[in-house]
């Protein structure tokens, strides 16, 4: 088809771009806006003041590090546990397969609030309530089902002949998984890792509930509690938000295709 851009298309593109990018750009502008001038319609000049005060005047770098740790722990854990299970789900015959996939789907539909009270009591009982490791555990509630679905669909795309050839050559199913199929599933693992990382980085309810000391907070919790006594520090909030978001925005733009294929893995295509 020849690309023919009508006025309608152009208008629609501009409208959607403005709606989806506008608020984010406004946030970036706010973060560069001199602090005393927020009441004015337009800034007289741009400044990095808000960034310096957020990064050095507050424990924000610590908070970013916390989020990195929790997201990395969750991602690593899910990939190890999830890839083995996803391989078995995609390539081996065993009873209860359908049940397991449906169960994973059902778990991903749980409202997180439904599991908060027992998880709180468990984490408190084992002394992991205010810890980053303790937070990575409940994160698997939403991250593992996601991992299973995305990776299972990736393993299914690898030809069955590979698995059978490895078996004929004398590999056990586990060796076939580790030596032959796992390396080939690397792109799938990368996609899964990006998705789980983003979801863990963004999670709020569990982090708000299970972390109590300010130094342990993750990025979303810190940003939600970013008020000072007299007024909302909008410039600093904007700067912190940009710092917390920019890596994700870059990641998303770079791996756009991967993310889309992961999100719609096995979705509407039959």
């Amino acid at each position: 088809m020849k690309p023919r851009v009508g006025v309608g298309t152009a208008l629609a593109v501009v409208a959607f771009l403005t709606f989806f990018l506008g608020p984010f750009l406004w946030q970036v502008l706010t973060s560069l806006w001199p602090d005393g001038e927020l009441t004015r319609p337009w800034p007289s000049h741009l400044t990095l003041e808000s960034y310096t005060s957020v990064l050095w005047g507050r424990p924000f770098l610590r908070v970013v590090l916390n989020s990195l740790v929790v997201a990395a722990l969750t991602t690593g854990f899910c990939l190890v546990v999830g890839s083995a299970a996803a391989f078995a789900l995609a390539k081996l015959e065993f009873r209860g397969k359908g049940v397991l996939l449906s169960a994973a789907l059902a778990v991903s539909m749980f409202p997180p609030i439904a599991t908060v009270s027992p998880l709180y009591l468990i984490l408190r009982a084992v002394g992991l309530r205010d810890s980053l490791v303790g937070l990575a555990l409940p994160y698997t509630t939403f991250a593992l089902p996601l991992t299973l679905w995305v990776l299972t669909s990736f393993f299914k795309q690898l030809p069955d002949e590979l698995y059978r050839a490895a078996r004929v050559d004398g590999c056990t199913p586990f060796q076939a998984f580790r030596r032959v199929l796992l390396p080939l599933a690397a792109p799938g693992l990368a996609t899964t890792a990006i998705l789980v990382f983003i979801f863990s980085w963004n999670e709020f309810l569990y982090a708000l509930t299970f972390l109590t000391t300010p130094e342990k907070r993750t990025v979303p919790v810190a940003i939600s509690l970013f008020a000072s006594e007299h007024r909302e520090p909008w410039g600093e909030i904007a700067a912190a938000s940009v710092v917390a978001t920019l890596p994700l925005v870059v990641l998303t733009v770079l791996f756009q295709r991967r993310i889309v294929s992961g999100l719609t893995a096995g979705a509407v295509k039959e």
Partner: protein
Amino acid sequence: MRPLEERGEARDGAARVVAVEPVRKRGGRGSLERERRQAYWLVAPAVLVLAGVALYPILAAMWLSLHRFILVFGEKRFVGLGNYAYLLGDARFWSALGNTAYFTAVAVSVELLLAVPLALLLQRAFPGRGLLRAAVLVPWAIPTVVSARLWAWMFNPDYGLINRLLLGADINWLGAPGYALHAAILVDVWKTTPFVALLVLAGLQGIPEDLYRAARVDGASAWRTFRSITLPLLKPALLLALLFRSLDAFRVFDAIYVLTEGGPANTTETLSIYAYKTLMRSGDFGYGSALSVATFVCVVVLAAVWLRWLGREEVAR
């Protein structure tokens, strides 16, 4: 989205078994047995984790909801269905349920209505399509809490962008009862329309090009083509989006907590917010658990209704 895949898998699964048979025979019965055993070992950790972080907590929450249990007092006493009896007469519960249902219904409808034209646009070839594709993913990648903060700033009654664009209108978006819930809906629409559009786009790409060519040959108008070809064939994708988005919207917490914490006058309080406040602010684990179990039950009912509808669509095709 997933159930379809599962069914597809079962279909070609049958074909695969036939093809695999000769190899298996050579391997003998023992090999098949061994394969099954290893399969169980491979899935065991995942099963254990899911049971531990999801199944057990749900059951435990149900058990807790049968107790009067105030955390700080350490008081824990079995009261049977007492919490649920209280819940049925609790006006705040009903208003939270109403708010949640309203939020879900309006947000998901608007998202679907916006996502279809967006997906149609993303499917067309035009210069800058890559940019638009990347741009629409930006709101999706931004943490909900951050997007809520960002919108809270734009909703600021004194110098927020929205009132400025409305030429100095003086609307207290987050502080006025009629406006606040709609403001929260707008934040949700901004954040998740891209995701819905991607699901719809995947559906669009599954429609055979021949059908459009045939329609062109028959001289069908663009609108007619959309109504008679695109929309019916897109229905499964739309229903899946409806299923996923409505279950997701029903458990809304982050955006509303940051925007209004349920205020003004509880007009934006959803089930998750009310349950959270009861659990973590009042420390009432018994009633809080009952509220969270009630949220869970609503989600299950909603899922059952949608899945049934989806199943019927599948059969009809």
